[in-house]
């Protein structure tokens, strides 16, 4: 008997004491097919501008910096402005995201835009969010060539562009959108849910920013 069978056998022996197997199988299939939502807290259940404002507030509470721009064309300028304010070299790393590519980066003279996965020399990464969660100030980034995972973790500064219309009240809504995009039961290789910049409280419980991931997280919310 394989190890797998030995373990499953023990679990079955412990479980089948009370219920028969057909009913158990049905219960499992039903739950996996229906994916019922649990209790959703009231906090995130607000609409429109109120929801965007809640997202910004929650993100700032976890020490992300947030700025709002009117249209996506304003993003390259906002990025340049951020680099200057932090005394960073005019160079950013980003993936193949179409929304980012449509922006007029050439308008920012002397700004270098490097494409592809991040390497240790990169100081600033730029990503475009799939969605965000107002309840907790969380940003959702699936992996792929559009937004490589290394861009989220390797550079010291991470800038994430978020379309205001993609801000959901709760994580469950983001999960539903993922299912629509990737198919039921399927996921991108990686989904990063990011809530603030990297931190550690491992030395005397003092929360310090910039443990191993980005030291700073800057969110640009596009209103249009």
């Amino acid at each position, binding site marked *: 008997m394989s190890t797998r069978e030995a373990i499953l056998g*023990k679990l079955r022996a*412990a479980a089948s004491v009370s219920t028969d197997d057909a009913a158990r199988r049905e219960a499992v299939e039903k739950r996996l097919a229906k994916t019922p*939502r*649990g209790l959703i807290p009231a906090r995130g259940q607000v609409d429109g501008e109120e929801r965007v404002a809640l997202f910004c507030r929650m993100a700032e509470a976890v020490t992300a910096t947030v700025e709002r721009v009117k249209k996506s064309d304003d993003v390259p300028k906002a990025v340049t402005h951020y680099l200057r304010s932090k005394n960073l070299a005019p160079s950013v790393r980003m993936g193949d995201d179409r929304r980012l590519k449509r922006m007029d980066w050439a308008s920012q003279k002397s700004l270098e835009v490097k494409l592809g996965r991040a390497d240790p020399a990169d100081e600033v990464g730029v990503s475009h969010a799939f969605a965000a969660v107002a309840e907790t100030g969380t940003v959702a980034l699936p992996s792929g060539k559009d937004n490589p995972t290394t861009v989220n973790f390797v550079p010291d500064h991470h800038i994430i562009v978020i379309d205001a219309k993609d801000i959901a009240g709760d*994580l469950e809504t983001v999960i539903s959108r993922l299912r629509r995009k990737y198919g039921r039961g399927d996921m991108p290789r990686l989904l*990063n849910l990011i809530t603030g910049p990297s931190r550690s409280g491992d*030395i005397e419980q003092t929360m310090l920013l910039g*443990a191993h991931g980005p030291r700073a997280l800057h969110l640009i919310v596009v209103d249009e």
Partner: protein
Amino acid sequence: MEIQSPQFKQKARKAIADEQLQRAMGKAKIGFVGKRKKAVDALPEFDDLRSSARAIKDHTLEHLDLYLEAYERKVIASGGRVHWAETAEDARQAVLDICRAAGARTVTKGKSMITEEIALNDFLEKEGVRPVETDLGEYIIQLRGEHPSHIIGPALHLNKEQVEEDFRRVHTELPSGRDLSQPESLLGEARQILRPQYFQADVGITGANFLVAETGTSIIVTNEGNGDLTQTLPRVHIVVASIEKVVPTLEDASQILRVLARSATGQDMSVYTTLSTGPRRPDDPDGPDEYHVILLDNGRSSMLGTEFHEMLRCIRCGACMNHCPVYHAVGGHAYGWVYPGPMGSVLTPSLVGVDKAGHLPNASTFCGRCESVCPMQIPLPRMMRNWREREFERGLNPAAQRFGLGFWAFFARRPGLYRLATSMAIPTLSGLAGRRRWFRSLPFAGGWTRHRDLPAPESRTFMQQWRDRETLKQGGTSA
């Protein structure tokens, strides 16, 4: 890791006399409690979410075999591999086989209690594979050759001066005159030292907070980002997880996430919640080529359906130890194995046997704070009592204690005799105490009076006083 739980009493005594430890624990007990309370108070639905989270795990445990099979199917469908391990040894061997096949010399590790449970680091080192812990706390204790003293804050028992000393001892390539007096500089140094390791490692090992049956996804919840670098940069990602980590759906994981971080660190969400499903896809510019999951039982299947079944709901948040007066007093190392605090006192005997877990189920005042803060509503005090009963049944507690309990039980089972004995003993003790009303010392009560005074009893027994009260109520006169 060698089980030292039978030495709990000696270790506890040493811990109480350890000034460094007491200083560190003094900070620990204030921080966690206040942060959790603030986060919980800010979410009116918190208690209902606890019940919801509990119901999800109860449902999952009832159907654990089926959800594991469903999970396995999805992992395979997404290009990953599943390795079943019945024992710690099976799991270690499975990890080593994967490392060997990958030609690995160095593995980076995200924070994982399960790899502590199977003592993976020592084993890999012996086999010529160098494990590098990348979580700041884990990195510090790896330098010290220690084990975690807390399940979410491995270096909770240390002060920053001790960390500075270790960094100076080990990072000899850095200038000796550097300033390491602040936690910021220590964190910066660890970041600088560990950065290249992620890029050099051949294999990255993480644990899992959840496994999702619906999608074959493993989830880690972290603050530092080290777990993400660990699983993104090397060619091979190994997830080591125990079988009770599975939940049915993404919605179920989301529900439990709402109570996890709040109970652990008082955050609404931890910084990085990362959902991994299989290896790199054809289009992916980064990510591992291989994705393996080691599914470990190591005694958990034997808890299912027993009086310790509910312990399998545990999500390892650490709230029970953060609120435990015994843990505050002695720290995590006194417990002598991987899991300290109330959850450890229940889990350790379940996993290694009550004969080896010694005094752990007795390391409790039964104040009940652990159960009241547990996000999964696990009846920890009840289960510690169950262990004490088993310990007594099997004759594992010390002779003096057994004799004392037996002596008391003899009288307790004979109410007439009990009343007679107490009606003689109580006035005698009361008389002996005189007008001071307390004892500084008393024969057979040295364990108590060495550290505090013993209050003297009233001159009449409870039963006598009760009878008087009832007589008075019925309009009679006091005897």
